[in-house]
């Protein structure tokens, strides 16, 4: 029977100001697919959904990379190696593996970068076609994990809102350009909802699958409470139907969603 369980924090890294990556040891969580998440107990009323930033099956370690935005992520960032986290997971629908022949674009924005890196780490080695990565953030310091991508021999294209690194502005023009050059391509993206909406529009013409990993405030994390919904197809007379990020997602196909 599944249950909440405790995992040991092996290591705490500080990839950027206001960020922390907890490397936790767990034979259970390494079963995760990139794009899945675990639901972490913090002192608040609700658990916090956090994606996996890396899934190291060999060493039985996964990464949880958080940006401090409130009480729960602050609490997580203050943990020390040797402490334990209470988690539920892995949860949700992750990314489907890339299709072998298609050019492949990975797009990450802010704390949407970690699951994108996890996808690259999981499937990047077996790729037979071209691969590019586009990362965006508010400013330079928040462009996390770029060294991890480089270690995977991928040089990500960068965009920052303030131009402090890479292109000034969002990732969207970079995505548009790639789409126009790779009409047969496939895409995986994770980031803030407005970014995903723009990426979804930009990628509408792609022949391959466009997979988007969404965020939404969650209650249970396991499909019972219907808190974590996002507007989805089909759109009826009353409006779009609502689907759950925690179990129907976080990863959806762009055709499934309504932004």
């Amino acid at each position, binding site marked *: *029977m599944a*249950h909440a369980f405790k995992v040991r924090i092996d290591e705490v890294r500080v990839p950027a100001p206001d960020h922390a990556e907890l490397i936790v040891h767990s034979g259970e969580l390494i079963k995760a697919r990139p794009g899945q998440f675990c639901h972490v107990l913090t002192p608040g*009323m609700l658990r916090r959904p956090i994606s996996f930033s890396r899934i190291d099956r060999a060493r039985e370690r996964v990464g949880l990379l958080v940006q401090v935005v409130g009480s729960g992520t602050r609490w997580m960032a203050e943990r020390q190696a040797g402490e334990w986290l209470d988690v539920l997971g892995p949860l949700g629908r992750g990314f489907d593996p890339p299709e072998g022949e298609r050019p492949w674009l990975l797009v990450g924005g802010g704390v949407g970068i970690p699951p994108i890196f996890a996808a690259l780490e999981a499937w990047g080695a077996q790729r037979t076609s071209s691969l590019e990565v586009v990362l965006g953030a508010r400013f330079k310091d928040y462009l996390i994990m770029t060294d991890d991508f480089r270690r995977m021999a991928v040089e990500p294209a960068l965009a920052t809102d303030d131009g402090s690194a890479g292109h000034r502005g969002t990732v969207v023009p970079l995505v548009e350009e790639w789409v126009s050059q790779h009409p047969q391509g496939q895409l995986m993206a994770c980031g803030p909802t407005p970014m995903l909406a723009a990426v979804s529009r930009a990628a509408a013409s792609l022949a391959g699958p466009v997979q988007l990993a969404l965020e939404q405030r969650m*209650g249970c994390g*396991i499909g019972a409470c219907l*808190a974590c919904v996002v507007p989805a197809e089909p759109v009826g007379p009353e409006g779009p139907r609502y689907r759950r990020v925690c179990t129907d997602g976080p990863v959806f196909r762009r055709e499934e969603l309504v932004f």
Partner: protein
Amino acid sequence: MDLTVRLPRGLVLKNPIMAASGTFGFGPEYAAYVDLNRLGGVSVKGISPEPWRGNPPPRVWETPAGLLNSIGLQNPGMEVFLEEDVPFLKTVDTAIVANIIGHTVEEYRQVAERLSQEPRIDAFEVNISCPNIKAGGITFGHDPDQAFRVMEAVRAVTEKPVMVKISPNTAEPWIVAEAVTAAGADMISAINTLVGMAIDFKARRPALGGRTGGLSGPAVKPVAIRIVYEIASRVKVPVIGMGGIESAEDVLEFLMAGAQAVMVGTITFQHPERMLEIIETLPEVLNAYGFASLSEAVGAALPSRKEH
């Protein structure tokens, strides 16, 4: 210790701990985490005759020791429930309470009538107290006459045990409890959520998509205890208590205030296995405070009991 609870019309619970409606889906969702056979019962998500879409997201927001939700009773309607969830429920041995909702008296009647034909459903919980929908819902629960009419219509179409779920958002919730008891309710469940709101500073608007939401969790426990106590003091039928339960001690507090059984909601999101832990520790906690049995604790803090 024997934890069996015997309720009207032959409704028997293995123990006084049930999952609260809306926090436990239709049953299957938590089945991977909780052995449903060990629960006293499960009150499923509110069911209407036709599917309801629910409110726009965000639908939950944390507050101090509490949770605001504006799910808006999203549900696939009674037929989908019967087809997709009841088969699973037939495989588990726990009391199944169908929480029913409607926009009109007629809708309540419809769903009660249809689900009454399904033997797997052990009881009804008539939800006239959900703050998250505009028509129906809470408006029935704030007016004793309308509440009476809903219960009367449900009573006319079912012989199953029926409880009515009371809103805490009126000055005297026991008036509605008295009205529905007069209309034939076998039990009262209390409380549903308190109406509340939070502001999203960045969006400069109410944080929840539904604007207002229902407040649940430990924050509301004192309000719930008081309402259970007042209803149990005034109404003859059994009361099922809920609101903010986190521990076996909290369960004892509801029992002493007059509840015969309880429902556990919000804390399940944090700790899926908490209901089972409560069931395990309840006998110890009862003993620790000098109660030799469950029934001894029920109503132990009520004035009538003190006079004996």
